[in-house]
C-alpha cells in the first residue's frame, strides 16, 4: 500500500482509539452539566482517582478485572457524592465559582493521590489479549474496540436514562429551575448527589479502561481532562451523542495533524477547534439551546 495511505489509515485508527477515550471523559462532563448545570473541573482528577482505585485492586491486590472495575465505579461514585456535599453551597452560583471550587477539589485529589500512591504511577497489563491484528500492514488493537464499545453502550444507557426515566427528567429539570423543581417535589440535593455519583463513576470507568493504554499516574489527568472537556464542547456541551462525536473528531483531528507536523499537533488542533467553535458556537451536534428573547 502507498505509505501515505498507510500512515493516514493508521493514524485514523489511533485517532479513534484516543477519540473514544476523550469521548468517555466527555460523557462525564456532559452528563454532570446536563443534569446539574455544573461544569466540573475536577472531572479529570476524579478520572485519575478512579483509575488508581481500580488499578490498586487489579494490579496490587490481584482482584479480577471485572471486580476491580466494579469496585472502582462504586468507590468513585461515593467520592462524587462527597464532592457534591462539599460544593453544595455553590450550586446556585456563577460558572466561575463552581469552576474554582471544582478546581480546588481537583488540586486536593491530585496531590492526595501523590501522597497516598506515590508519584511514580503503576503500569497496568491489558485485561484481554491485546496482540494487534495486522490488516494490510495496518495494526488494530483489539482493546480499542473494547473502549469504543463501552463508550457506545454508555451513551445509549445514559441517553435512555436521561430521556426516558422520571429521575432522568427530574435531573435535567433541576439543572434549569431549581426552586420550581423543589416545589414540584424533586429532592434536588439528592438528585445532584446522584448526578455527581454517576458522573464520577463514568470518570472511573474511563480511567479504569484507559489504565492499560496509558499508565496510571497522578499526571494522567491533565491533558485528558482538558482534551475531554474540549471534546465535550466540540460536540455540544451536555449532549450525549455530542460527547461521542466531539471525542472522536478531536482525537482524529489531533492524530491527523500529528502526521503532518508532529510537534505542532496540539497547536493546530486547538486552533482548528476554536475555528469550528466560531462557526458552530454550540458545538457540532449542538447543545440544546433556546434562542428566543
Amino acid at each position: 500500500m502507498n505509505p501515505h495511505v498507510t500512515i493516514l489509515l493508521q493514524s485514523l485508527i489511533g485517532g479513534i482509539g484516543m477519540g473514544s477515550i476523550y469521548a468517555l471523559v466527555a460523557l462525564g462532563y456532559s452528563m454532570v452539566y446536563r443534569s446539574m448545570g455544573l461544569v466540573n473541573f475536577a472531572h479529570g482528577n476524579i478520572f485519575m482517582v478512579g483509575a488508581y482505585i481500580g488499578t490498586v485492586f487489579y494490579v496490587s491486590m490481584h482482584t479480577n478485572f471485572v471486580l476491580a472495575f466494579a469496585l472502582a465505579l462504586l468507590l468513585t461514585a461515593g467520592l462524587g457524592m462527597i464532592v457534591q456535599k462539599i460544593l453544595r453551597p455553590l450550586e446556585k452560583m456563577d460558572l466561575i465559582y463552581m469552576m474554582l471550587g471544582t478546581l480546588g477539589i481537583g488540586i486536593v485529589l491530585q496531590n492526595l493521590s501523590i501522597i497516598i500512591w506515590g508519584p511514580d504511577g503503576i503500569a497496568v497489563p491489558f485485561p484481554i489479549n491485546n496482540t494487534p491484528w495486522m490488516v494490510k500492514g495496518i495494526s488494530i488493537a483489539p482493546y480499542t474496540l473494547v473502549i469504543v464499545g463501552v463508550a457506545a453502550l454508555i451513551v445509549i444507557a445514559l441517553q435512555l436514562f436521561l430521556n426516558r426515566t422520571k429521575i432522568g427528567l427530574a435531573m435535567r429539570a433541576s439543572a434549569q429551575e431549581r426552586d420550581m423543581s423543589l416545589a414540584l417535589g424533586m429532592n434536588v440535593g439528592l438528585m445532584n448527589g446522584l448526578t455527581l455519583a454517576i458522573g464520577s463513576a463514568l470518570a472511573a470507568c474511563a480511567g479504569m479502561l484507559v489504565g492499560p493504554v496509558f499508565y496510571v499516574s497522578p499526571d494522567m489527568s491533565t491533558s485528558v481532562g482538558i482534551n475531554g472537556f474540549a471534546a465535550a464542547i466540540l460536540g455540544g456541551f451536555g449532549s450525549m451523542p455530542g460527547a461521542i462525536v466531539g471525542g472522536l473528531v478531536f482525537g482524529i483531528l489531533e492524530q491527523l495533524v500529528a502526521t503532518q507536523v508532529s510537534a505542532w499537533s496540539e497547536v493546530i488542533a486547538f486552533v482548528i477547534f476554536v475555528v469550528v467553535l466560531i462557526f458552530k458556537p454550540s458545538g457540532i451536534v449542538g447543545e440544546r439551546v433556546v434562542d428566543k428573547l
Partner: protein
Amino acid sequence: GSSSTSSTSGSSVASGSSQDIKIGEIGAMSGNLASLGTWDSQGLQMAVDEVNAKGGIHGRKVVIEKLDDQGNPSVAVNDANKLVNDKVVAAFATPESTTTLAILNILKQAKIPHITSGQDPEITKKGSLFVFRDTANSLIFDKTLADYVVGKMGMKKIAVISNSGAYGKGEHDAFVSALKAHGISPVSDQVVTPDAKDFSAQLTTIKEAHPQVLFIGTEEIEMGLIAKQARALGITARIVGGQPAATPIYVNTAGKAVAEGTIFATTYISNDANAETKAFAAAYKKKFGQVADSHVAKAYDGAKMLLEAIDKAYPNIDGTHIRDELLKLNYHGLTGDFKFNDQGEGMFTAQIGTYKNGQPEPLQ
C-alpha cells in the same frame, strides 16, 4: 528540634539549633513532576541520615530545608531566595533543567554551591561557579549511545522520536548531533508532546522509513508507551534510549517482552552491579520500601559528595570553601567516578546496558 534522622520520607523540617548544618533542597514534590523531586529527596535523605547516624559532620548534625517548587521556575526562584535568606551552606537544587536555569544566578550571587541533576548541557555553561551536576549531561549519554549503536553495531538507519519538553529536546539534540559526528542523519525524526498517550501517527511514519534502530528521547513513562506501541505497530527496530530506559518504570510501562533487548546509556545499570550498589539498594528498600534506581542512586551520590565537601571544608563551611572542596574531590560512587571540572561537570562517561531475560545488564 530537628527530626531528620528519624523521618522516613519527606518530613524533615529545617529548624534545628545553630549548631546544625543546614542544607537546602528544591524540587517538585507536587504537580506533574513530583516523581523527580521525590527521587532526589529520598536519595538526599539517605545520605544525610547516614552521616547523622555517624554523629554528623564534626559532631554537628545536618538538616535539610526542603522546598517544593511544583516544577514551576517562578516558584523555584522564590524557594531559592528563601534558601539564601535562611543561610543554607549548600543546596540540592534542582532535579530538573528549567528550574535549575531559573535559580542559577541567585545561588551564584549568594555563593551557594548546589547540585543539579538536570541534564541540559547548557546549565554548566552559564558562568556559574557554584553549580555541580551529579550525573552526566545529555551529550555524554547520547554520544556513548551513538558510538555504540553506530560504531560498534554498525547500524545506519536510525529513527528518532523525542518529546518537546526540556529533557526530550535535550536528548534529541544531543543524539542527533552525536549521529552527525558519525556522518549519519536520522531516517525519520518525530516529535511528540510530553503528555501525549497515543503515537500511532508518528510511529507509522517511522515504520514507513524502515529503521534498524529506534531512539526514544523522552522520560520513562512516555518511553515505555512509545516502545509498547511501536511493537504493536509492527516496528521491529532495536529500541535505544538514554538514562530513563535503564529504570524499572520503563520496563513496567513497556512490559518485559518489549523492553527485552533495549539498549541504553546510563550511569547506573542495575542494583546488582556490585557490592556497593547491592548494599545501597537493600538499605534503600528498607528505608523507603521501594526499589532503588538510577535516579535515587545519583541523588545519593550527589548528596555524598556535597556532605564530603562540607566535611573537608570544616570548619570553614561557607559556599566558597565548600565549592573549592567539591572541585578537589575524587569521588567513587554508585554511579561511577566523579571529578569535577571548574564548570561543575563531574561525570564524563556513561555505560551501555541492555535487558536480557528481563534483567538489566552491562554490554561491552
